[in-house]
């Protein structure tokens, strides 16, 4: 009997150790050689929209710009100024510019870094009779001087929880889910 418990205990320990090995530092990357303190102004380019909601990218970008500004750590250029820069450089696809285009854009709008992003999920998801709001976004920061990616992060917030399955309720409001996702991304940026 004692032998059985010993084997069970060892197995659990082995499984836990195995799982710990799978752990990562989080789904983001920071260039260790980049001095993020030197970045004073950032341009947030229009995000790419992979969702069915036509305005999803615009909504997330808007919240992200305001949240980033409200941290007081960096200055974010107005969307109109960024649009002027895009038109001047003639960036064909503003949501995924080439390093060369970013190097040209930086001095025109006077920014040290550019943020691009992709909104992968935005809106209601269903599973059986339960529904809830979900958002999935990934961002990357590119240094304007070199066109090099210095930070990337992604997040997924919302979705159907056990609580939703048991009691319904439809999950959190889309605006709250977006706020959570953007907060998570900003935390990863300033980590």
């Amino acid at each position: 009997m004692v032998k059985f418990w010993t084997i069970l205990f060892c197995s659990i320990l082995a499984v836990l150790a195995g799982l710990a090995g799978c752990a990562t530092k989080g789904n983001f990357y920071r260039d260790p050689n980049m001095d993020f303190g030197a970045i004073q102004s950032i341009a947030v380019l229009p995000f790419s929209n992979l969702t069915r909601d036509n305005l999803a990218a615009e909504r997330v970008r808007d919240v992200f710009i305001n949240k980033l500004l409200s941290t007081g750590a960096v200055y974010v250029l107005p969307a109109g100024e960024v649009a002027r820069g895009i038109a001047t450089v003639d960036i064909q696809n503003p949501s995924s510019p080439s390093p060369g285009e970013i190097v040209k854009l930086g001095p025109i709008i006077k920014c040290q870094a550019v943020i691009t992003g992709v909104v992968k999920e935005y809106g209601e998801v269903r599973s059986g009779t339960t529904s809830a709001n979900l958002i999935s976004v990934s961002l990357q920061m590119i240094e304007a001087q070199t066109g090099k990616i210095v930070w990337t992060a992604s997040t997924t917030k919302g979705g159907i929880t056990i609580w939703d399955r048991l009691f319904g309720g439809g999950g959190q409001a889309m605006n709250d889910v977006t706020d959570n996702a953007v907060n998570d991304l900003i935390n990863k940026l300033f980590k």
Partner: protein
Amino acid sequence: MTSSTNFLNKAAVILIVGLLCLSGCAYPKGAVRGDAQAGAKKFQIAVFPVENLSGTLSPLKEIRQSAIDRLRAEGFPILEEGILEKFMARHRVRYTGGIDQGTAKAFKEETGAGAVLITSLELYSDKIPPKISLMARLVSTGEKPVILWMDGVGLAGDQSPGLLGLGLIEDPRELRKKAMSSLWDSLTGYLSGEKGEMGIQRVKRKFSPKIVYRSFEIDPGRKYTVAVVPFFNSSDRKNAEEIMALHFVKELTRIEAFDVVEPGVVRQGLLNLRVIMEEGVSLANADIIFGVLNVDLILSGEVLDYQDYQGTLGAPKVNFSVLLIDRKSRRMVWSSDSYNQGDDGVFFFDCGKVNTAYTMTSQMAQAIGRSMVK
């Protein structure tokens, strides 16, 4: 028994005295108006045709006529229809949503009118329950057009249903009459020398912006001249960019710290310089606007949602962001994100529900304006 009778007698006497005192505090409308007549404005008013921002077929002539009738009834001089038509034809005035500097000067010189009444219809729905929202402003004529008075009204037939639905308004004409009466009360109040509705009202906390960036460069003790530029419209609502700009003009006009430039002057400035704004105001655009209009701040933003609902079920939805660019630093000194639904914080029997996007946006814009100079 005797002591309880005495107590009741005393209570009755106190109650009667209290009621008498309260009746003394009652608002004698005629008397106050009479006193206020000392400060009454007696200039001739030109009533512009109503600007239709609702995107639907609406009784524009009736709305304009109600303003004329009310002002005439109160004894305020109105510019004759023939003179106004001839002036508009001579100067090719097609845009009735504002007045530029040149037209304002010509108005004063050629017609003698002291002010122009500009009305913009935001929403008109005659489906049950009917809805109406509109804003009006009185702008002075002469060298520099100044907004003298601005107010608005947003009503829905089902906003005060009352007991057993007795307060429901199903006739759109009745609702229109009620809205017009409230708006022109405010105008005639101003013209009679009363304060009108221009003062700051209490804003509910739920209408405050959700995300705010405010630069320390804003000096709360200073007076700023502001140009409100039409917003970038990403919503499905037609004319939402102009409606939102008008809301901010209205709410900032109520705040002492802001001197708001007449939207007609801003529009003419943008047209003269052929300023095309892609996705909002760029710094190059801002420099031009600062130079031409000689303002300290430019207010603009983006409208993501501006929805009113039809019928009885639903709630209005408004989502927008605002930015303020400072002339001195050439930087954004304010940026905020606001979103609300008419049923936010409503849990029981639609108590506290807001039925029109107008009412909600007015409160949201006022909350922003007040936070800017706090």
